[in-house]
């Protein structure tokens, strides 16, 4: 009985575990790993290749590689083979000429362009124009440059053939540096630690989370909950439904509503124009109004969380305490101050910590409304991580740096979740305790 049960339990749990491992555990591991790489659009996501380019040679030269070595590895040789023949025909070289070249020089190598061209010109079918000959010659060119090699050994072998005089150490260095894939590095964290943007991002994030929590998620949530508590059921039902609207509205439409509310031809600027106040695009027009828009738009969603949770906590206060205070002649303010608020300490702590975590990580609405602007004045850490790694208009996505920024949030998230789990005994707060088997 016991083993059968436990087998069934594991079987029942397996689908959950598979999905959670795939999309929770593995992303955490990947984020951690990739934050220590220089992965970006230019290195690609998959395995890299080995390719020698002019840019790389120039860089190596500035790092001390001798001119002779640079010339040697970038040397071109000409070998007549079937592959070159095919390339020549594909490049539009006369077929008879290409066939002739293959017939006469198959397997031969030339190390000098002029020798090869002279030999070609000697053929009966050679075209008149020197340019056409040069073009044909180019098809048979072999060079270590600008060719992709799958393994370091392949590139090393080619280099040995092209430039045998280059010392092995130098060759290994060149091969090593020609890797186009991502390499392990701690540069991301060093960059984050030294960049001046980092401080501004942290400042913005702290300000955004702090202000939204202070004004909306906690204060307004508590205020609304207390008002609803005293209002008759019908009125409080209407108002709590209204405050829930932003939460259930899809984020995209909610963002459109805020655009309509704050853009130049929208409601607030039109109203301001009627009243003779400055009227412009409040969402993007100035730093102060952009911040107010950002905090309000997020706050109106967040306030309902506090409202719901505090309302639940208020209902669990024994009503006899309120009655007793009324018998003693307490007014509403005294009731709130002396009876309700002291009992709200834990719910307030819960909302604060829980919402801090979700606010730190949330950027979707900011992205859809102010998009971090004007300039980068409303860019918070999570938005910046997202844009660095996944979404910017220049198209140069820095997965490694973005992952490093995300890792900071992941670590904060994990540590805080585990801490909250201990602090609040989640299950007691989230659901009523029930019999456990």
């Amino acid at each position, binding site marked *: 009985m016991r083993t059968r049960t436990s087998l069934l339990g594991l079987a029942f749990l397996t689908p959950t575990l598979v999905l959670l491992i795939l999309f929770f555990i593995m992303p955490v591991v990947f984020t951690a790993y990739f934050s220590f790489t220089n992965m970006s659009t230019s290195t690609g996501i998959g395995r890299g290749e080995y390719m020698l380019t002019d840019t790389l040679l120039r860089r190596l030269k500035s790092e001390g590689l001798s001119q002779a070595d640079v010339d040697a590895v970038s040397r071109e040789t000409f070998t007549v083979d079937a592959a070159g023949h095919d390339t020549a025909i594909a490049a539009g070289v006369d077929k008879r000429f290409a066939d002739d070249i293959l017939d006469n020089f198959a397997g031969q190598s030339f190390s000098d362009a002029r020798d090869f061209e002279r030999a070609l010109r000697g053929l009966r079918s050679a075209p008149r124009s020197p340019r056409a000959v040069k073009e044909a010659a180019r098809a048979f060119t072999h060079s270590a440059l600008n060719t992709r090699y799958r393994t370091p050994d392949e590139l090393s072998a080619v280099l040995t053939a092209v430039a045998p005089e280059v010392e092995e150490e130098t060759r290994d260095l060149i091969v090593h540096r020609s890797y186009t894939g991502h390499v392990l590095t701690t540069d991301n964290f060093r960059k984050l630690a030294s960049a001046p943007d980092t401080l501004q991002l942290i400042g913005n994030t702290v300000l955004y989370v702090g202000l939204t929590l202070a004004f909306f998620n906690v204060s307004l949530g508590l205020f609304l909950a207390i008002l609803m508590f005293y209002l008759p059921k019908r009125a409080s039902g209407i108002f709590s439904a209204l405050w829930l609207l932003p939460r259930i509205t899809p984020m995209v439409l909610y963002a459109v509503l805020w655009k309509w509310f704050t853009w130049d031809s929208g*409601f607030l600027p039109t109203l301001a124009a009627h009243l003779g106040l400055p009227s412009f695009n409040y969402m993007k027009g100035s730093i102060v109004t952009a911040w107010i828009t950002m905090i309000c738009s997020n706050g109106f969603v967040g306030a309902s969380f506090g409202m719901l949770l505090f309302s639940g906590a208020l209902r669990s206060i024994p009503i006899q305490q309120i009655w007793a205070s009324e018998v003693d002649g307490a007014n509403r303010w005294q009731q709130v101050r002396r009876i309700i608020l002291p009992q709200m300490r834990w719910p307030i702590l819960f909302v604060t910590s829980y919402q801090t975590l979700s606010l730190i990580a949330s950027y979707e609405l900011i992205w859809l409304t102010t998009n971090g602007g004007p300039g980068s004045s409303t860019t918070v850490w999570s938005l910046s991580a997202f844009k660095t790694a996944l979404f910017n208009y220049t198209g140069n996505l820095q997965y490694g740096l973005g992952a490093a920024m995300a890792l900071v949030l992941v670590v904060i998230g994990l540590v805080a979740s585990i801490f909250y789990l201990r602090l609040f005994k989640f299950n007691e707060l989230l659901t009523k305790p029930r019999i456990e088997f």
Partner: protein
Amino acid sequence: MTKNFAMFPIIVLLTLLTAPIIIMYVYLVLDTFSNTPPGALFPTSFTLEHWRFLIDPSIAGNVWIPTLNSLIFASCCTVIVLTISSTGGYALSRLNMPFRSFFLGGLMVLHAFPAVTLLIGIFLILNFSGLYNTLTGIVLVKAALTLPLGVWIMKGFYDAVPWEIEMAGVQDGASRFTVWRRLVLPQIRPGFVALGAFAFLEGWGEYLLPRVLAPSADFRVLSVFLATLSAPDTANYDFSLFQAVGLFYTLPVLLLFLIFQNRLMNIFNGGTKG
């Protein structure tokens, strides 16, 4: 409680606080049926032209294809979340197995953990597995991210099923699986409805995942459709059109919410994020 306070000032105060919400949503409905001259605050004439996008694809493209895509996306998410949560929740609630408390604790950590920070890791995983830019990929990701809450809620519902029902079934010789399927599942139908509605709403409203993880796919969901429509670089933006499309997009949400209000409130109370 006695009414030893004046209700009127409180109602006025609440209305003032709620004013932005009231204005936004009243105008959301109003503007789609009316024309407002530039610079005016109130609409002057009734019209249905903003709703012409429903039948005229030249205005904003065919809106019915994204609608169908959203429907498919949200339904797939709902089915996966319901299936997996109903077994996972039962295992955690009732079945005896090793590491049970560890799984429970892990689930609660994941529940509080802001999953959106994992987007970069998920993006790379989808790329490696070839699921990038596919419907399957975003459905799996969305379902997985809803799962900790789903399992948690289902566990709550299972916890409430009297243990005696199962005892009786086992006494009569049924296997635990049969007991679960024939006796316990019917008991938690309210849980199914609530979680189903919730998962559908989550999928229907999702924007970030389809936009980032399947950007050039040939299926576009309604949220992405609306976002591209109302992109800031659109030369002459037409708020009435955005509002009409947006209202069209949100109607199913409002309907579902009205129908399942009480059950959904339980889930919202259970602590969603945001």
